């Protein structure tokens, strides 16, 4: 590799050709501040508009200042990152950004977790010379959707959300609109997100450096339910939550905090603390059975059987195909998501068991996800208007609840999930990352289909963080072609292939968020640190290995519920409780016949 020598802040450094000044400086321990710049290299996310101009540096011989984030190092370049000229410019630019930003930090959902606020602290901004009686600020309407709150007055035009929504997810709900001073990233015609193709994946929220995009907060409602003596509260926790929540309490990324998490939920006062992993195992039973069913028909020569079967646990992904590929909506498994299955069982089987009326039970889910907030509102997941899950809160919201309740998370003694909806397997925990659902399904489908034990439990070929992966699994002679995509843009590639008749997969797993649920929009904010995601990913597989049972169909509690309540997987009762259907939600323009 070609190396380049240059000087930054009077120190010589050698970097490979193509390195930006920002990267070179970072390598030397020089922390040039940035705002719009955002990269997750291992997940293929790049947002480098060079727009905020916070990272400007002085390059000898150059007329104006250079943005460090996009300026490449050149041989013999002399760079100053902290001259008076640079500091003055940086500070003035920061003051400008702040002059068009509401100063309601104390009420802001991002208070304490805001990259702009951090910059203001770092530069000791006290009084803003550009704020006066005459200064104008953006005036957009605050908008609340089922999952996401948009306050475009806080938008700093970093374009991260636009990059996620378009380049990564190819959803296209967001775009930069208008120009000049009123320019922000918003929806078509500045409409409500409900009228857009938004999937509520929330990746925009996950990357927003400020409080322009935040999640809908249900912590208050959950607290009220907990303290309401007439209500029985049941909580479920998704697999990816346990490998991330520790970060909110200063624990190392990748810490598996299942025991403390369970203890904290109990300390919060939930009546029953259960595990979404349990219903993940249930999902495998249903989805795996569906896969075997379709495959068997296919092998018997039925060419009309819908293949490949697509996973359906990710609600943002469900929204995506309902909006963008409604013509393929016969392909995904009809199995509800683990959250949905859990809710249905909690308010039927379990409610009956503890003799609690449906209306008196408040079912709460803790999810790494914002689309789950949307999902709990779907009509198919309600009975007579009463939702199977009343509130879905994010990992971040749970952390806030824990802090609010004076619980010292780190020093909590580990606790166990309650029974019967708390027992789970290693197959369930890997739902938390890309490739996990399909691996779990293969573990079970293999044994059910071949009636032979698996020679090896770990399917390394299904793991990894590349956007699109494929593997062929030898199921006792049957070559099962499996596709995996995470990030909806990657999913689109596989779907286009299916549409074009070019796909030879039998089953495809799709997760909307890059990396899967570990990088869900409800997780602690990683602020662009890709190592955090990697650590969570490793933790998921570690958690799998640590489980005594690692195949869903071996979960005794799952076996029990089929025996005593559900009957057969994909049987009548299962269909009623655990399966759903999909809609065509693509916006279309049609001829008005009534003139």
């Amino acid at each position, binding site marked *: 590799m070609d190396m380049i020598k240059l000087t930054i802040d009077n120190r010589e450094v050698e970097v490979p050709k193509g390195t930006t000044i920002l990267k070179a400086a970072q390598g030397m321990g020089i922390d040039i501040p940035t705002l719009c710049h955002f990269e997750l290299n291992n997940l293929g996310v790049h947002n480098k508009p060079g*727009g905020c*101009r916070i990272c400007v540096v002085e390059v000898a011989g150059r007329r104006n200042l250079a943005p460090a984030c996009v300026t490449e190092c050149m041989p013999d370049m002399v760079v100053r990152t902290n001259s008076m000229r640079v500091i003055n410019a940086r500070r*003035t630019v920061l003051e400008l950004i702040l002059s068009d930003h509401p100063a309601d930090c104390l009420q802001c959902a991002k208070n304490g977790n805001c990259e702009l606020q951090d910059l203001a602290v770092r530069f000791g901004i006290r009084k803003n010379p550009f704020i006066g009686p*005459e200064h104008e600020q953006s005036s957009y309407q605050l908008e609340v959707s089922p999952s996401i709150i948009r306050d475009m007055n806080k938008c700093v*035009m970093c374009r991260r959300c636009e990059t996620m929504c378009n380049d990564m997810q190819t959803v296209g709900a967001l775009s930069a609109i208008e120009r*000049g*001073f009123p320019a922000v990233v918003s929806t078509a015609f500045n409409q409500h997100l409900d009228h857009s193709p938004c999937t509520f994946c929330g990746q925009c929220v996950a990357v927003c450096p400020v409080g322009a995009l935040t999640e809908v907060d249900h912590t208050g409602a959950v607290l009220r339910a907990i303290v309401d003596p007439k209500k029985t509260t049941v909580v479920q926790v998704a697999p990816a939550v346990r490998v991330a929540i520790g970060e909110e309490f200063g624990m190392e990324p990748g810490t598996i905090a299942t025991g403390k998490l369970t203890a904290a939920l109990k300390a919060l006062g939930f009546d029953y603390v259960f595990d979404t992993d349990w219903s993940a195992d249930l999902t495998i039973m249903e989805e795996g059975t569906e896969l075997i069913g379709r495959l068997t028909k296919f092998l018997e020569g039925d060419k009309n059987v819908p293949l490949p079967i697509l996973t359906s646990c990710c609600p943002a992904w469900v929204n995506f195909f309902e909006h963008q590929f409604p013509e393929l909506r016969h392909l995904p498994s009809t199995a509800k998501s683990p959250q949905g299955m859990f809710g249905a069982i909690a308010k039927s089987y379990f409610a009956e068991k503890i003799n609690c009326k449906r209306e008196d039970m408040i079912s709460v889910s803790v999810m790494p996800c914002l689309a789950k907030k949307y999902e709990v509102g779907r009509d198919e997941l309600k009975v007579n208007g009463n939702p199977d899950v009343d509130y879905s809160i994010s990992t971040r919201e749970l952390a806030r609840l824990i802090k609010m309740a004076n619980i010292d998370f780190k020093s909590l003694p580990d606790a166990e999930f309650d029974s019967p909806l708390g027992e789970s397997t290693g197959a369930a925990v890997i739902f938390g990352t890309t490739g996990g659902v399909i691996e779990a399904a293969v573990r079970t489908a293999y044994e059910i289909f071949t009636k032979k034990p698996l020679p090896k439990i770990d399917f390394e070929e299904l793991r990894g963080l590349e956007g699109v992966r494929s593997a062929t699994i030898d199921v006792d002679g049957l070559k099962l072609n499996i596709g995996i995509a995470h990030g909806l843009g990657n999913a689109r590639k596989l779907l286009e292939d299916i549409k074009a008749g070019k796909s030879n997969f039998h089953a495809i797993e799709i997760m909307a968020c890059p990396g899967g649920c570990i990088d869900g929009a409800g997780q602690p904010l990683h602020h662009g640190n890709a190592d955090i995601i990697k650590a969570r990913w490793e933790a998921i597989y570690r958690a799998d290995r640590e489980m005594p049972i690692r195949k869903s169909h071996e979960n005794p509690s799952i076996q029990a519920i089929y025996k005593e309540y559900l009957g057969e997987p994909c049987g009548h009762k299962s269909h009623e409780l655990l399966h759903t259907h999909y809609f065509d939600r693509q916006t279309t323009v049609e001829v008005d016949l009534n003139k």
Partner: protein
Amino acid sequence: MANYKYHILLCGGTGCTASESPKIKENFIQLLAEKNLTDDVQVVATGCFGFCEKGPIVKILPDNTFYTQVKPEDCREIIDEHIIKGRKVQRLLYENPEDQKHISDSKHMGFYKKQMRIALRNCGFIDPENIDEYIARDGYKALATVLEQNDPKATIDIIKKSGLRGRGGAGFPTGLKWELCAKNAADQKYIICNADEGDPGAFMDRSILEGDPHSIIEAMAIGGFCIGATIGLVYIRAEYPLAIHRLQVAINQAREYGLLGKNIFGTDFDFDIILRYGAGAFVCGEETALIHSMEGLRGEPTFKPPFPAVEGYLKKPSNVNNVETYANIPVIINKGWEWFSSIGTEKSKGTKVFALAGQINNVGLIEVPMGITLREVIYEIGGGIKGGKKFKAVQTGGPSGGCLTEKFLDTPIDYDNLVAAGSMMGSGGMIVMDETSCMVSVAKFYLDFTVEESCGKCSPCRIGNKRLCEILDKITKGQGTMEDLDRLRNLAHVIKDTALCGLGQTSPNPVLSTIDNFWDEYVAHVVDKKCPAGQCKALKQYIIDPEKCKGCTACARNCPVGAIKGTVKMPHEINQELCIKCGTCMEKCKFNAISIK
């Protein structure tokens, strides 16, 4: 073919078209038919003559008579007197403002004397919708020569040696730009013409496209051959319908003659041109923004590198030049680089077209050799300040430029001198201002423009220019403080230092140059709360002269805010606290009793 004895050329540019030149043409044709002279006299609608102040222009040849401000009803007299009887119509001739004598020949008019027309060589001379007239003027000869020589490197070398620099603003050497693009190998390259003239008050590119569209086609084909592009794209303002029409006609004609298409001049060079329309965004004059706009995207600039020469339209190597730059190319090939480089100054060769406007007698489009002084342009070509008022400043470079004062009047105009003086060449707008122009308001006018035209991508331009504008507004309202002036200067420097593209980096120039050159005027607004030019509304005071006021009550009755009090037949008075300075009272007063202080 008719053997015409007279040619009547009339300006078909936008300005003259707006003042009924099409009707004039129609009248001429009709009258000639009436007199049976259709075969003797040819009527040609040409491109702009440049002397827009006196439009519509009609020129009669062979005797080279230059009629100004011709009205449709004048046509009969011109035919009867001039064409038939050979007597020039005196009252339509240009009157020399110095001695009130009529001048019949444009060559002897001050407006044309100092001009040198290279880029505009065919404007006002040929029928832009007739390729034959262009060919008759050596059209396509340069392309033929270049293709025959079949040595792109040598041609680029000619352009390099000629010293031609980009006429769009920054003045990057054209030959070097071509060379950089030629070096990058690719399966497809593009040569692009920037005809998105967005500078308010500049219309040179439009005039060239309207008056001599073939020169652009020819130059783009030459450029295409040199850099290895087979497709040319013209990014043209949708607001220029006439230019679009003429260019389209010209492209069709060139295709019919085989001058566009496959195997041009029997060589294996293929080339064709596509039009792309701008949609009203000044920032699209910046080449990366222009390219994004051509791709159907928002016209936002991106950081360079990569330069378009490496990654341009559809990610392919592309070369972008503006219209005026291209217009110079065929002449340079035909007449040689030595000839071209003999014109101008050491670092700025050739000529520059300026749109001369403002408080000046001869508004119009002029082309002058580089190195001419502002004084020559304003006083000799422009005929001095309108109404005999005093010269105050000249603004060059449009919203990216600055205001130059009297002390720069004798500076030779070239790229580097203008930059050194705190302005820039820009695309060539030249606005002359007299003592009634308030320089704070002028700075605000340009900032208003930049605020409206900022793409919003980078914070210094999106928010900074807005804040600059707010501070200027505060000053023009008499609410500014001395701290505001410091703030203004610091902010202007930071924007220059940090903005992403050329638009943002130059947007504070009108502020900085007026602060530097008219500091006292700023101070007067801030400290004395006075606008020396009497322009700033909020600093105006309407005063009723008690001597002149007859007490007719017209002002009081019409005042929308009831600020005027007084009894009938007694002098009235204006309550300055209530007055909104709308000027209605002054309009209504029949006795000239109200004045502005």
